[in-house]
């Protein structure tokens, strides 16, 4: 058929291109989830896990104690490599490194508390002012008034002596931050905080001039606690840009750096995928237009409409839609193009829409089953995909019924019969069938031998340099990863006190609010002694504060204000604002407990007493375990359900089994890829296989529509139509997922490999295996003409 030209054709081609760009934009919108998103677009990690686990994972983002990172500087200026012991290291490098460390600390100080909460810089006392002030203010909660002056010296004399000692120190030439510390804490309670701080960070690296410095590797380390969660990548990026401007090769290791690296790589990959996908789609549209089949472009707008309706329905059910759902769900909906292609190319056959309906039902069988997953992301993906598929199928059907002429397209002029034809005799078709069956064999072997990797950490994208630094640093942390436990409500502080008491009895290290504040009851007892001295019977201050001169009253005003009667109140764990020294352990209404077991036995003991305590690694690793557990019954059940549908459709087992061949050949190519090329096979690959399941049944059903008997299809039109639709469908599927192969992030790369190989294998099974087997079976049954007549 000669291609049409003219303004109308060009306009319609333009509409098709525009629709393609819209679909591509929808894909890109998924990547926008990482950059900045409206409220209905979710980009949290909580969606990967059931609620009870996602809360604990979210804790890693919410609690500031997890916002510590490490700045690392190699004296020689960075570069890959581990220990550099040996060789001559001049003192100049070390002096230069120390100067750069001081320069970095100056930058950290200038950044201010909006960016930096705390740092390991040795001379920056100002960062502790708030903590020391609150610590000194809350002294009456932790100790009785009699505790101020033990022994024969009563508290007024003790308090006066402490103030005099603070004034004596203040008479020296001191930094203003030290002066403020003396004003807020004349009793010197901040020494208790020093001890707590020493217990918190166990880094086995010696200090030089107050900085961590490893002689063996000539590395300087500065711990830095950022003042915002790791998800705020833009702020992390701005901070690192400022650090880079110092001119020294500082590198950051920690949750913010890791999150930025992963988000950055996903964004770059999705940009690459979107660009490549849109380019391929545009090229396909152009090819369709040039070949005179521009009407196929009219199949794209319904996909876009269906995706939009899918978003609305998903947001209505789930409250929001995740960026990953948007990215991959649109791909699933796009598979519905197969139905439109068969309808457009084989519109003359009355069996077309029955085949399409069966394809939809077999796909929906899997999607509806996966909707029962306890993983919110999978549930959401299935809601979105099922809605979109149903809508686009309905739109295609209606449009084909109401406007059949809009989509009618001539199939490719494939050479089927005669010497060298697709159906010609000889070893050609036989070899193709053998290869298809070989792929089926490979898939069966793959079911037995291939086990998906469940290691979530391999999906943490890291540069080799970051991985090396991370391993070097964490080998020097003296503590094992902690167990996390959350509590909330009015009893949170008492629960923490109970945990602390249990931990001390079993010699297990723990970090929670009770380390710093006693239970509500004990606070009350402590406060009672202070109120007796400082509160008058009728309320208000009793004026029993030691008689102080103007200098002392003014100098110690920050401390004295905490002794006013109105200030002597207990701290409630339900308060919205926690004291500065507890801010790391408090978020919203929740309080964090970190257990630090030193052995597996201690871990087991903690879990036996507090079953809700769990490590971050376990939380993160739960996702693939839950997925594996659910797929163990969901996958066979979906397969069985779809097969039963095929049995009902074909009225017998044999044709149903033949229609399954593309599914197995697709799996077989994936298995071969894993064995022959060492391609990774992970739980992400399993998610990809769910999508392969969807379109492989479609291909199998379509392929069984190829008439086996020439008499029923004299000009081989139906065969050409089905083969053309299969080819276009495979081309659009493969070109849609091929760009994922360009990705560097392991999640997207694994998905791309599975989908690309699965699509290729499915197509080969559909055109090499199914028609030959179906033909052979039908010839045996002698029902070729009846099948076509129906």
């Amino acid at each position, binding site marked *: 058929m000669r291609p049409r030209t003219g303004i109308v054709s060009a306009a319609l081609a333009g509409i098709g291109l525009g629709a393609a760009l819209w679909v591509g934009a929808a894909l890109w919108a998924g990547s926008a989830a990482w950059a900045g998103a409206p409220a209905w677009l979710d980009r949290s990690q909580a969606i990967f896990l059931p609620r009870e686990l996602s809360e604990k994972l979210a804790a890693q983002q919410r609690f500031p104690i997890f916002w510590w990172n490490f700045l690392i500087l190699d004296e020689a200026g960075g570069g890959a490599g581990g220990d550099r012991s040996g060789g001559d290291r001049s003192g100049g490098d070390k002096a230069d490194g120390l100067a750069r460390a001081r320069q970095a600390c100056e930058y950290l100080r200038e950044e201010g508390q909006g960016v930096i909460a705390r740092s390991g810089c040795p*001379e920056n006392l100002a960062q502790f002012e708030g903590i020391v002030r609150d610590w000194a203010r809350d002294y009456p909660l932790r100790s009785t008034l009699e505790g101020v002056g033990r022994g024969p010296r009563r508290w007024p004399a003790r308090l006066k002596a402490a103030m005099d*000692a603070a004034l*004596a*120190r203040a*008479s020296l*030439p*001191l*930094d*203003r931050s030290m002066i403020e510390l003396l004003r807020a804490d004349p009793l010197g309670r901040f020494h208790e905080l020093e001890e707590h701080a020493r217990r918190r960070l166990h880094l086995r690296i010696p200090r030089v001039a107050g900085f961590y410095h490893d002689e063996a590797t000539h590395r300087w380390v500065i711990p830095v606690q950022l003042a915002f969660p790791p998800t705020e990548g833009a702020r992390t990026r701005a901070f690192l840009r400022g650090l880079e401007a110092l001119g020294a090769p500082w590198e950051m290791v920690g949750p913010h750096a890791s999150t930025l690296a992963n988000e950055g790589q996903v964004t770059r990959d999705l940009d690459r995928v979107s660009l490549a996908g849109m380019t391929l789609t545009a090229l396909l549209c152009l090819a369709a237009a040039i070949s005179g089949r521009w009407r196929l472009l009219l199949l794209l707008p319904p996909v876009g409409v269906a995706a939009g309706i899918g978003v609305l329905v998903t947001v209505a059910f789930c409250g929001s839609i995740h960026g990953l759902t948007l990215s991959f769900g649109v791909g699933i909906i796009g598979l519905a193009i197969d139905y439109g292609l068969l309808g457009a190319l084989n519109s003359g056959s009355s069996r077309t829409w029955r085949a399409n309906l069966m394809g939809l039902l077999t796909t929906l069988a899997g999607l509806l089953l996966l909707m029962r997953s306890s993983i919110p992301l999978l549930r959401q993906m299935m809601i979105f995909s099922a809605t979109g598929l149903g809508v686009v199928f309905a739109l295609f059907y209606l449009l084909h019924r109401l406007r059949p002429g809009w989509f009618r397209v001539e199939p490719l002029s494939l050479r089927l019969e005669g010497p060298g034809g697709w159906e010609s005799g000889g070893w050609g078709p036989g070899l193709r069938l053998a290869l298809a069956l070989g792929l089926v064999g490979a898939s069966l072997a793959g079911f037995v031998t291939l086990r998906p990797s469940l290691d979530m950490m391999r999906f943490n994208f890291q540069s080799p340099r970051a991985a090396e630094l991370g391993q070097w640093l964490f080998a020097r942390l003296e503590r094992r990863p902690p167990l996390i436990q959350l509590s909330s409500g009015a009893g949170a502080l008492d629960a923490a006190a109970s945990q602390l008491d249990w931990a001390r009895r079993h010699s297990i290290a723990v970090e929670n609010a009770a380390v710093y504040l006693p239970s509500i009851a004990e606070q009350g007892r402590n406060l009672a002694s202070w109120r007796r001295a400082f509160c008058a019977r009728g309320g208000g201050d009793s004026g029993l504060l030691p008689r102080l001169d103007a200098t002392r009253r003014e100098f110690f005003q920050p401390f004295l204000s905490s002794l006013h009667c109105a200030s002597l109140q207990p701290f409630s764990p339900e308060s919205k604002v926690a004291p500065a020294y507890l801010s790391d352990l408090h978020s919203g209404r929740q309080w964090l407990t970190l257990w630090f077991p030193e052995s597996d036995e201690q871990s087991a003991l903690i879990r036996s007493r507090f079953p809700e305590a769990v490590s971050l690694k376990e939380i993160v690793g739960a996702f693939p375990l839950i997925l594996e557990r659910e797929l163990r019954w969901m996958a066979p059940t979906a397969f069985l359900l779809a097969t039963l549908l095929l049995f009902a459709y074909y009225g017998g087992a044999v044709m149903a089994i033949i229609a399954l061949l593309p599914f197995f050949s697709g799996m077989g190519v994936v298995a071969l890829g894993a064995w022959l090329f060492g391609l990774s096979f992970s739980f992400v690959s399993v998610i990809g296989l769910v999508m392969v399941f969807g379109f492989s049944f479609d291909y199998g059903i379509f392929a069984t529509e190829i008439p086996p008997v020439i008499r029923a299809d004299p000009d081989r039109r139906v065969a050409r139509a089905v083969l053309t639709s299969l080819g276009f469908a495979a081309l659009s599927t493969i070109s849609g997922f091929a760009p994922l192969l360009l990705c560097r992030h392991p999640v997207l790369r694994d998905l791309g490999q599975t989908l690309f190989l699965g699509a290729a294998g499915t197509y080969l099974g559909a055109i090499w295996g199914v028609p030959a087997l179906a033909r052979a079976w039908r010839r045996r049954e002698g029902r070729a003409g009846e099948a076509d007549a129906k």
Partner: protein
Amino acid sequence: MFIAFWVGWALACFCAAGQGKPISEQELAARLKHYRGIPDLRVGFRQIKWMGDMGIRIESRGELRLQRPDKVTWRVTKPSPLLVRLDGGHIHLEEGEGSDRRVEDFSTGALQGDRGARALAGMIAWLELDAHAIASRYEIREVGPRTFRFIPRSGTDAFTGLELRLSPDGNLDRMVIDEASRDRLEIDFGRPRPARASN
């Protein structure tokens, strides 16, 4: 106009005179010769620290002991016992009494990044009055009889300015230190006493 010119010239001379006459390291060394010649010096002091922005005035008393070449002890007796000893490259700090007594020791090298500790070490080192060390870091001006003003040559010093007055017999009489934190120390010294054999 003629009168205005002379008034302006007189004013300029007055201002210039207020800034003092620059003196060299050698001249300063000559003025400090008597003080530097005492091997073991003990002298009482009375200090007032002004924290202008807070309106706070802290008064303290104590004794300075200087044991050449490099041991300086700054002992505060009022408002509370506090001892700071600079001995070579080490700083020893004691405060409080009885069960409240606390001791700290650190080296000046480890404290290079600590502005406060640098200021403390700087003040103690000042009491040695080493003309060479002073001249290398400060511009020296004589602003009055036996009175010298020291202006730091770099902006990173712990002090923004220092004024020193010697007694007629060449001992320390008064020292005024302007800190970078805008606090001011005014230290008045008594008559020096010969040191006893024991510490």
